[in-house]
């Protein structure tokens, strides 16, 4: 079914948590491992403006539907960051403008020069580069939905689970946009398929890689996707990608999470 951008925009809203009893976290706090995952998610959500920037250097922003989506998507993701920051704040962890700026400063020139790299590629490849961005975005959003649902299911915290399900619901709408766009653009161009397959196979890494330290990426992958339930989720994510035109057989999630899942197995085996 085609994605209806007007309907998406009309129903776009900031995620609500005003009806949730946040004081529950004072009496029933989250364990440290989970807080570490939440902080990762929070930083990635606030970092959406940087992912949007990478998309904006392609000609896609001149497309009215894409422009509308990016406007709503960026705002929804910003509010996901705000919601998670509120939860972290209940545990004494501060995520405010200073903290976000400090994080971006810490990323240094590698992050600052990303527009240069993306723009060069975009100008060299042309319009097919948008298809790659859309498939990449779909992979990121699929994994975000899975991560939030896994976290809600693993933690079983009465307030956190509700909040994360609300966030996951919005993320699944983002998936619909990216997957629809990717499918349409990939179907239209064999070159786009080859380019996208190459980019995903060679360069895709879990969302947050390159922004967060490797040990944080490893922790989140191990915590959320380790174990049997995690492996099942990874297979499901790879199946989603494989259904995109020209992407059959790709196992980007399995490959990207393999080291973390192996570490999980090692940790689980008693010495």
């Amino acid at each position, binding site marked *: 079914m085609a994605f209806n951008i007007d309907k998406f925009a009309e129903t776009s809203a900031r995620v609500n948590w005003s009806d949730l009893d946040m004081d529950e976290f004072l009496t029933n706090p989250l364990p440290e491992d989970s*807080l570490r995952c939440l902080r990762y998610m929070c930083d990635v959500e606030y970092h959406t403006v940087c992912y949007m920037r990478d998309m904006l250097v392609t000609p896609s922003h001149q497309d009215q539907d894409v422009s509308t989506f990016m406007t709503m998507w960026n705002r929804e993701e910003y509010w996901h960051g705000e919601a998670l920051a509120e939860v972290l704040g209940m545990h004494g962890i501060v995520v405010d403008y*200073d903290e976000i700026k*400090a994080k971006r*400063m810490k990323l240094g020139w590698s992050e600052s020069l990303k*527009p240069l790299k993306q723009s060069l590629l975009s100008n060299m490849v042309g319009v097919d580069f948008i298809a790659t961005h859309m498939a990449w975005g779909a992979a990121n959003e699929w994994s975000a939905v899975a991560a939030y649902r896994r976290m809600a299911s693993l933690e079983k915290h009465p307030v956190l689970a509700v909040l994360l399900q609300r966030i996951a619901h919005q993320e699944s709408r983002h998936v619909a946009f990216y997957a629809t766009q990717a499918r349409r653009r990939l179907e239209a161009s064999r070159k786009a398929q080859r380019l996208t397959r190459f980019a995903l196979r060679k360069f895709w890494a879990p969302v947050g890689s390159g922004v967060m330290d490797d040990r944080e990426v490893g922790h989140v992958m191990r915590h959320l996707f380790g174990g049997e339930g995690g492996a099942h989720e990874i297979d499901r994510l790879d199946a989603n990608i494989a259904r995109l035109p020209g992407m059959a057989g790709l196992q980007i999630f399995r490959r990207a999470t393999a080291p973390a899942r192996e570490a999980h197995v090692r940790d689980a085996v008693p010495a």
Partner: protein
Amino acid sequence: MSQQSYLARHRQGRLYGPVEQPIVLRSGFDVKDFTYRAQGSLRPELDLAAFDRAPLDPAVLEDLRYLRDMERSTMGQVRSVVVSYTNKESRVAAFLTTWAYERHWIADAYQAVLDAHGPHAGAPQPPEHSWVERVETALDNISPMVDSVWTNFSGEAVVAGQTARGWSQEASTRAALRMLERRAGHPELSSLLRRVAEVKATHERFFAEETTARIRTDTRAERFARAYLTFAFHPLRPVGLSHAHARRFLRDLAPTVAQRRELFALADEPLQATPGTAGSEPLRRAVEREWRLSRYAPHQTLPPASRSARVATAPTAHPFPSTGGSR
């Protein structure tokens, strides 16, 4: 690494940020409150049947299409900011997120009015392919590469340049809304334009306070503000919109010298109060540039108002809320 050590890496609850003093400049504008109270769709406030009873004249519809396209160009403007150093400024980025959202709904309201005039009234304006547009498009394609490098070498001072442009754009748009309201003389359109101006007054207030605060704390910021307002900037023609449409729009809004004086005064006057931007007169200068450019292009243009039209001419009473107002 042990579980305990993750929280132990925090200092006063912070993982990355310094605990001694804030690193983000905070002007008087409450960005949190702004993001919280974002204005969504304006359609519920519109009485579209009023346009059935009294349709807008074709020239006003064309003006409205131009205003819609200006609002729709927001992502292009956001791009020029987020590829630069300014992307590190989390508070500015948070503002831009909501700013883009509100501008989307302003464009949507214009579209609703256009659609009320038939299926073709809101059709996209045909693109122009003059050599000037082609050069601009080429420059626009390479600008993210260039800007990402030099602005990061320049550092935080560059933010003032970008916020100064935002300030001038919002002030000029509010001035144009006022002129269009008078030009159209249509009560329902007036009601929408006043509502839009109210939303834009908040945007203008952010850019004004941010620019002023940055200029006050950094002398380099003042140089950037002035440079950004002077070079390759037209407050009422974002990159991507055609020169011909911009000229037609200005000609229709302000056909006489007296009206042009008024438009320039309304648009450029707000920037006179801050030393760093005083005397910049971005709209008047941009129109002068357009006039010079038009000698090499076939389109009819708006001759600039004389020097006496400078912003020293006080505007008449402004019907829209001042930027100092709150929501």
